[in-house]
């Protein structure tokens, strides 16, 4: 239940327009950069809503008594609460409501798959109209506050003297750290890379999530008192037992994705066949596209990206921005089964990405210098549904074609990072390498260890990872307050 739904301003606001008038308003579309221009620039594709557009969109929200959107949100944001503040023009207050439950609202507003979560549960859908643009409004409020230069800090309980360590500074770790610091814990985040942010920095490209946005959210956590240690690989630089000796009573492991998956087909180790992790890390984290930096990156002219998820879309759109003449998604199922967000697929198409669905690479062909020059593709058709419920791709016998490519990015998933789990003696790890946890994200083998995000799920979204971090923080609090 949203806390101040009965506040007088809110009741007045509800009465100021009839629900019919609200539902009659068309959903405000996101302002986007021109696809032809943006495909060659690093500028953010979505430009955000203007204040006027945001207020109009906020009016579409019916301020339901039992808001179903909130049930769709993994971090339980008070959705009508912040939207109604936008409607009445109290944008900073809207941001404050968001920050009560989300440590990264400007990030969530950009990269959450809202269509499957909050917006997917919006009452408008039951009335056959488009859902309220909750994600765009969230982004608006967070951006407004950041750009105002007057970011409020959420309230923190006074220090309780307990020390908790967070391993990994990606979305699950940041969300866990944010909640713990608000509860009065002393929190230190240990990051293996040289920058804070995990996948938000190395994975998601600038044109979808600018680093400045991530840095601002991290700065908020810093101001709340969260300590960050970079260049520290827990399990290598310091061990978990050393952290215990230093007084960390509980640890949250959010060490994220690890080794990229490959298909084990001939030619996969040719030059210029690389994982999406490598390609995106070079371009995003290392800024390899900038001639001022030392890190090299190959600029493919004919680029093939294998996979159908968000990472594949990020990779293929990055390739365009790195100068590719032709950038093609190769996916073994049909477009309907693609796990990527609809918006990303639309954006990619508008920018000129080609989609070759129902094709699967079976071999990479190299030139005399060991560089990839073509890919052999097996054509597929859809058969019976598999365990994931999606129709299984089946080979069409003899239907093989060859496509020229001077660069191939393989974006078919990752397995959990083995370093932290394998360094903790007695920790229960699944066959797939994930840490086994209960519903409270607590290890079933070592009660002081909690975990979330990709190290538990194998591969998930930013918001599910954040939800894990949040649940773990609550569970750590319960455990340490026994």
């Amino acid at each position, binding site marked *: 239940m949203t806390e101040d739904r009965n506040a007088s301003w809110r009741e007045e606001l509800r009465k100021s327009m009839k629900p019919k008038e609200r539902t009659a308003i068309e959903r405000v579309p996101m302002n986007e950069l021109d696809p032809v221009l943006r495909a060659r620039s690093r500028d953010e594709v979505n430009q955000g809503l203007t204040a006027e557009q945001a207020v109009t969109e906020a009016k579409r929200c019916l301020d339901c008594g039992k808001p179903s959107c909130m049930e769709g949100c993994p971090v339980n944001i008070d959705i009508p609460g912040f939207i109604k503040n936008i409607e009445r023009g109290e944008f900073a207050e809207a941001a404050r409501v968001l920050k009560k439950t989300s440590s990264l609202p400007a990030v969530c507003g950009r990269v959450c798959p809202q269509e499957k979560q909050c917006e997917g549960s919006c009452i408008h859908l039951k009335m056959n109209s488009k859902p309220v643009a909750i994600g765009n409004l969230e982004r608006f409020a967070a951006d407004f506050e950041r750009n105002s230069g007057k970011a409020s800090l959420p309230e923190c309980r006074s220090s309780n003297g307990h020390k908790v360590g967070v391993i990994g500074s990606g979305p699950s770790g940041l969300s866990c750290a944010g909640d713990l610091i608000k509860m009065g814990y002393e929190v230190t985040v240990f990051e293996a890379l040289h920058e804070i942010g995990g996948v938000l920095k190395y994975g998601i490209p600038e044109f979808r999530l600018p680093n400045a946005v991530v840095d601002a959210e991290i700065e908020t956590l810093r101001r709340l008192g969260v300590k960050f240690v970079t260049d520290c*690989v827990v399990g290598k630089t310091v061990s978990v037992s050393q952290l215990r000796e230093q007084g960390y009573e509980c640890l949250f492991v959010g060490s994220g994705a*690890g080794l990229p998956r490959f298909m084990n087909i001939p030619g996969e180790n040719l030059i210029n066949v690389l994982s999406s992790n490598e390609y995106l890390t070079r371009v995003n984290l290392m800024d390899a596209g900038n001639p001022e930096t030392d890190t090299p990156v190959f600029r493919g002219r004919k680029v093939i990206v294998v996979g159908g998820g968000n990472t594949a879309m990020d990779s293929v759109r990055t390739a365009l921005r790195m100068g590719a003449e032709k950038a093609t998604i190769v996916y073994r199922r049909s477009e309907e089964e693609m796990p990527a967000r609809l918006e990303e697929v639309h954006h990619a198409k508008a920018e000129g990405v080609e989609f070759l669905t129902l094709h699967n690479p079976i071999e990479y062909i190299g030139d005399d210098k060991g560089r990839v020059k073509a890919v052999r593709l097996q054509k597929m058709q859809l058969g019976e549904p598999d365990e994931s419920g999606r129709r299984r791709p089946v080979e069409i016998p003899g239907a093989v074609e060859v496509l020229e490519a001077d660069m191939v990015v393989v974006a078919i998933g990752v397995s959990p990072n083995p370093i932290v789990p394998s360094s903790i003696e007695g920790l229960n790890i699944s066959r797939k390498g994930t840490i086994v946890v209960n519903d409270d994200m607590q290890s079933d083998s070592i009660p002081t260890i909690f975990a979330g995000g990709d190290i538990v799920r194998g591969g998930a979204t930013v918001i599910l990872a954040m939800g894990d971090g949040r649940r773990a923080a609550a569970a750590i609090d319960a455990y340490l307050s026994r």
Partner: protein
Amino acid sequence: MNRIVKKERFSEKVVRLDVEAPLIAQSRKPGNFVIVKIDDKGERIPLTIASADTERGTITLVVQAVGHTSARLCAMEEGETIAHVVGPLGRPTDIRNYGTVVCACGGVGTAPMLPIVEAMKKAGNRVIVVQAARTKELIILEQQMKQWADEVVIMTDDGSYGTKGLVTNGVENVIQREKVDFCVTIGPAIMMKFVSLLTRKYDVPTIASLNTIMVDGTGMCGACRVNVGGETKFVCVDGPEFDAHQVDFDQMMTRLGAYRDLEAVEMRKPLR
């Protein structure tokens, strides 16, 4: 942290740096490496740890200028600070009492061999070091090797020091002379390939420490993948040491050249 407390120039392109890194100095083991990023613009490069001083809290790196970042690192002076040093990474060397161990090394591969020689000796092995270089001036760490090794065989391409010949000639002489139970090789890929071919001929189990291209070095990017016994392995987390007889060195050498053209363009730029 990460301050260069001592610098020694071994040759035109090779320097030895002692870097303040107390946590790494404490936890590192022979075979481990670090990833270094010298500043905002620097690349992340893997460097094997040559030695560590836990009292002073320093690690020793021996660096050869091959790319833009390593050239800039070699140009750094005592008192300057390296922005980022992370480690120790990779699995440590499997130190055991094998019997007689030959340590075959060349180039900057000699530096990371030093702690392995020490550990192998302490584990009770008879340790014979065969160390090679193009010419006398490029032979490094000979005295330090002698401190631990039962014997140090020096090989130079031009015969200006030690015996004229390649590292493989030196190793073969030892194998023909006495029973060798184990071999460790670190150096340029081509050298490790031929050491590996040789020891396979004589059935001497051999491990090679691979120095591939890496970005994160923590098991995320896959740039370092190599083919070992027909399987793809990741040098940063599965290695850096592998059964040399199973490594596809030819593929590894091809992959090491992935950015050679781009790097050549970079190297023509003035150093920042």
